[in-house]
């Protein structure tokens, strides 16, 4: 479904992403792992058009989407959540998700119908699914960190995506919030049949939900394969664990 080929991006000569390769099949959950600064977020930014790659290509469902601006990428039904919470702080929880749906339905050029009468059912439905429905009228600046991360995902869902990219969805969450978030991600894949690409530092989570794993180190893809293949891959251990003999986990 998504195919990334030898993608590269440097910042002032520093190669943040250097020959990254990735393929994701329809319906899969794929994890990207790698140490801090490996270039995971940058890779996601390249896929979603927030950054333009220096070289390499991104194909989605056979179509070349390399270098498209984010709003066009989004219209291909690719949505993402951000590692650093990236929401609308002056709007309410409800409005945050609503804007996302309005945008997908191309209603944002409508000047005279009150927003409050549009797409309310669908917005409520999404809030229900992610468990934020009681907090719908709160200004998002007043939410806890965990709830904001969940709202991140809810906003991405507003775009009714086929392909969902989650950048460290559970980062900074309390243990029970993390558990709920994992359940949510699983149900998105299971019930809604979304294809999911995510990155995460917690190996337990990664091996728990990913079908396949791609390992990145210093901007480059070292290996992509099933959990078992990755777990005992020597190159991964060298780079990732500084050459210890044990398998990861």
């Amino acid at each position, binding site marked *: 479904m998504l195919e990334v080929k030898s993608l590269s991006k440097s910042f002032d000569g520093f190669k943040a992403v250097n020959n990254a390769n990735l393929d994701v099949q329809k319906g899969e959950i794929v994890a990207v792992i790698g140490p801090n600064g490996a270039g995971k977020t940058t890779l996601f930014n390249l896929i979603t058009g927030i950054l333009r790659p220096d070289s390499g290509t991104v194909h989605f469902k056979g179509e070349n989407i390399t270098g498209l601006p984010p*709003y066009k990428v989004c219209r291909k039904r690719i949505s993402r959540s951000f590692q650093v919470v990236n929401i609308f702080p*002056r*709007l309410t929880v409800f409005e945050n998700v609503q*804007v996302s749906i*309005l*945008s997908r339905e191309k209603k944002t050029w*409508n000047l005279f*119908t009150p927003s409050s009468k549009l797409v309310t059912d669908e917005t409520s439905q999404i809030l229900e699914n992610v468990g934020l429905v009681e907090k719908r009228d709160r200004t998002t600046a007043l939410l806890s960190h965990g709830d904001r991360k969940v709202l991140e995902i809810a906003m991405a869902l507003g775009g009714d995506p086929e392909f969902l990219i989650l950048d460290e969805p559970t980062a900074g969450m309390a243990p029970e919030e993390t558990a709920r978030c994992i359940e949510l991600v699983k149900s998105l894949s299971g019930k809604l049949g979304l294809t999911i690409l995510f990155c995460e530092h917690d190996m337990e989570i990664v091996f728990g939900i990913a079908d396949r794993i791609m390992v990145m180190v210093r901007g480059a893809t070292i290996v992509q394969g099933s959990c078992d293949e990755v777990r005992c891959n020597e190159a991964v251990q060298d780079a990732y664990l500084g050459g210890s003999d044990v398998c990861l986990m």
Partner: protein
Amino acid sequence: MLKGMLEGRGRIWWAAAIILMFLLPFILPRFYLYLLSIILLTGLLATSLNLVLGYGGIFQFHHAVFYGAGAYGTALILTRTGLSPWISFIVGPLVSAALGLIIGWVCIRLSKLYFAMLQISLGSLVWIIVYRWYSFTGGDDGIHGIPLPDILSSSNNAYYFTLAVTLICLFAMHKIVRSPFGSALQGIRDNPVRCEMIGINVKRHQLLALMIAGFFAGVAGSLFVVVDNTVFPDMLFWTLSLEICIMCLLGGWFTFLGPMLGAAIIIALRTFVSTYTTYWALVLGILMALVIFFLPNGVLGYVEEKIKKGFIEPVIKE
């Protein structure tokens, strides 16, 4: 808050206030009626700025250009063509909207502060053209004694016209703020990157907002022609732009009616102060500093905060 005010009892208060406004010409002396007209149209101007500043997060620091363009558009058609005067009232705002589109199109590729700098430069360019082009615009003299349709020539009727048009425009802008476009605009203000990522073409939405804001500023300019019968280049000068920015901040730039309140305070104060001293700019500066320190959300923003607090606390205690 406004939503609550427009429902139930709030609606009655609004109706009463508007009826009172329509009755004022029977009570007020002519000078105060003139002052009130100026407050209304300047409030309209400030509200139009706030559409892009407070709701859109766009630093349009030279908004007076569109006010002047609307006024000159109307005045030039009234004095130099035989067209119906009513056409001039539409052409003025359209000229402003077009100018808003052009200047916006050039500036919008820059972000925040750079947008502001370029916008001020281009606006000043327009001012210079108006100021220097004697044969067409009357240069620094401006245009005086602009002929108006008979029905608008009495000061009472000019006031009624201003009041009605201002109310209609406020209503329209309020609708726009509550519309999906308004929601998108506020999203863009809060977080443009996220907006792009949920599929919104940020620059195009901003451009439309700039055009709409230009249009309503142009309406305010046309109203000035009706109220004052003159136009002059100072209407496009950047000091006026600064003043309307201050009106938005003072009244509350995250509230819908804040800019109108700000306009009322500043104009009333200026009229009052300038009978005592010539240091109006000094007073304005001190006022601005006080607002920034003590009322960062403006007067109406402060009131709204208080109401919200009084409203939320009992709910939490239950």
